[in-house]
């Protein structure tokens, strides 16, 4: 199984992390986060910058409902990229059913595709902590309080099945080979490289221009090619494994 594309795209890039390239931007971000979240601090280690400490979960009147100990590793690619998160207080078990990576305990808060589709310009680290991370942690508390709790916005299936589910919502097909064809298109660096006379990857037999072109263009515009590349590799391997097993 491939390693998860938990952080934002470009993980193979040799470029220096943004927080080294741009210390002013980093210091501004640091001040902002430490002002908003009183018990979170930046910790700089060799090769990474993390935010560590206690995150308060507040109700709408500002009262503390819960506290979580967390570590948030900043994306190396941009200050608005998808960070990697660990819950360090031992409250959440490392189980895939809880959307925690069993290998290293990192939290699978977002499907990378959905993160970039919803936030094509990324989101600031404070927005991320206040929004998706807080939502994720609250759902974890509610699961602990009730076995019947369902994730409030639903949840993606695990691994490549989750990737298929995401593209199925945009293409109307969950056939893995069709999704692979879609990902092959989306790996192109430039939208102009995707030709309207190509067959639509949804499997309808229509030309792209007469079928899901708008959806494909939108996906292409919003999701970085590094993310679709990683999903393509993951899905291709799964399809091949399935073929071999037959």
């Amino acid at each position, binding site marked *: 199984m491939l390693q998860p594309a938990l952080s934002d795209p470009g993980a193979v890039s040799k470029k220096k992390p943004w927080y080294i390239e741009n210390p002013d931007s980093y210091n501004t971000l640091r001040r902002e986060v430490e002002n908003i979240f009183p018990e979170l601090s930046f910790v700089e280690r060799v090769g990474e910058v993390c935010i560590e400490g206690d995150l308060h979960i507040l109700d709408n009147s500002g009262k503390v409902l819960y506290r979580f100990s967390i570590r948030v590793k900043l994306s190396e690619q941009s200050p608005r990229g998808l960070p990697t998160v660990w819950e360090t207080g031992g409250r959440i078990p490392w189980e895939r059913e809880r959307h925690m990576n069993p290998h290293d305990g990192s939290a699978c808060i977002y499907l990378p595709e959905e993160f970039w589709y919803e936030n094509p310009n990324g989101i600031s680290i404070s927005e991320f902590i206040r929004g998706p991370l807080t939502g994720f942690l609250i759902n974890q508390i509610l699961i602990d309080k009730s076995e019947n709790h369902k994730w409030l*916005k639903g949840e993606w299936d695990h*691994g490549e099945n989750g990737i298929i589910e995401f593209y199925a919502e945009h293409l109307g097909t969950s056939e893995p080979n069709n999704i692979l064809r879609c990902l092959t298109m989306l790996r192109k660096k430039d939208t102009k490289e995707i030709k309207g006379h190509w067959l639509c990857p949804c499997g309808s037999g229509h030309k792209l221009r007469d079928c899901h072109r708008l959806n494909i263009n939108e996906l292409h515009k919003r999701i970085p090619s590094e993310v679709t590349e990683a999903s393509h590799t993951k899905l291709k391997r799964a399809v091949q494994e399935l073929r071999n097993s037959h």
Partner: protein
Amino acid sequence: MTDKEYLEAIIREQTIAQGSEEFKALQDQRAKVEKILREHFGSSPAIREGGSKAKHTMIRESYDLDILCYFLHDEENAGSSLKEIYNNVFSVLSDSYIVERKRSALRLMDRDDHEHYTHLDVIPGRYADETKQDVYLHQENGEKERLKTNPEIHINHVRDSGVRDAIKLIKLWKVRNHINAKTFVLELLVIKLLQDKREVPLTEQLSHIWAEFRDNNDNLTVDDPANPEGNDLSELLNDSVITRLSSVASNTLKQIEEFGWSAVYGAVKEDAESLSDRLREVASTRSVRPWSSV
């Protein structure tokens, strides 16, 4: 509610939340003080937060924000001696606040309302050298006129101790029982006593600390992690402090045995159902669909 849940609820009640009025007021006060200091001393002094806020051990019932104001080791803008620096910072702040001289800190009171404590202490000092690690502080009283310390080591020692919850609850216990001990010394004691008990439940950690205070008070000693040889903390942990710690700890353990933990910290008002409702309400606008990469 289990004992563990009870203590967690007490800590939540004592947490000054991000975005709360108290927190904003503290931030505003801090910004005002920094502006005053910058206007007089320019950009050279390093001004940053210290104390319980930086250590992440602040409790609502009793908190101060320490503002560290350290001048470069070779700069004489604010004075050539530590005493001059201390007095000059005092003088500058006195234009806007009633300033009380503490041993090394300057405590700020509101000028319009003398009773109103701003929760701010300013600690002037000077870096020992260009590495900006060790700091010299002036001491108004005490044996030595200057104290060598290292705020970074103090902050990291507490913040990364792994026993911050126990520290918060011991601080609260100290306040509620009017124990006249320096918080810094109590923090060091808690960390030392729990060095082999970081992973045990909070109830067990606290019981262990109080049992040590009660039964082993002859051996209660602490070292300053920033200057173990140079700073003698025994004066801060003298016989009267130890006696008081021991007697209150003994009484606390009896209370727990007879009446349970609520006898120590009082009742909490949360009930589980309304907590879930409020959590759901907050999560409703923030949830995303989680995935699992494997």
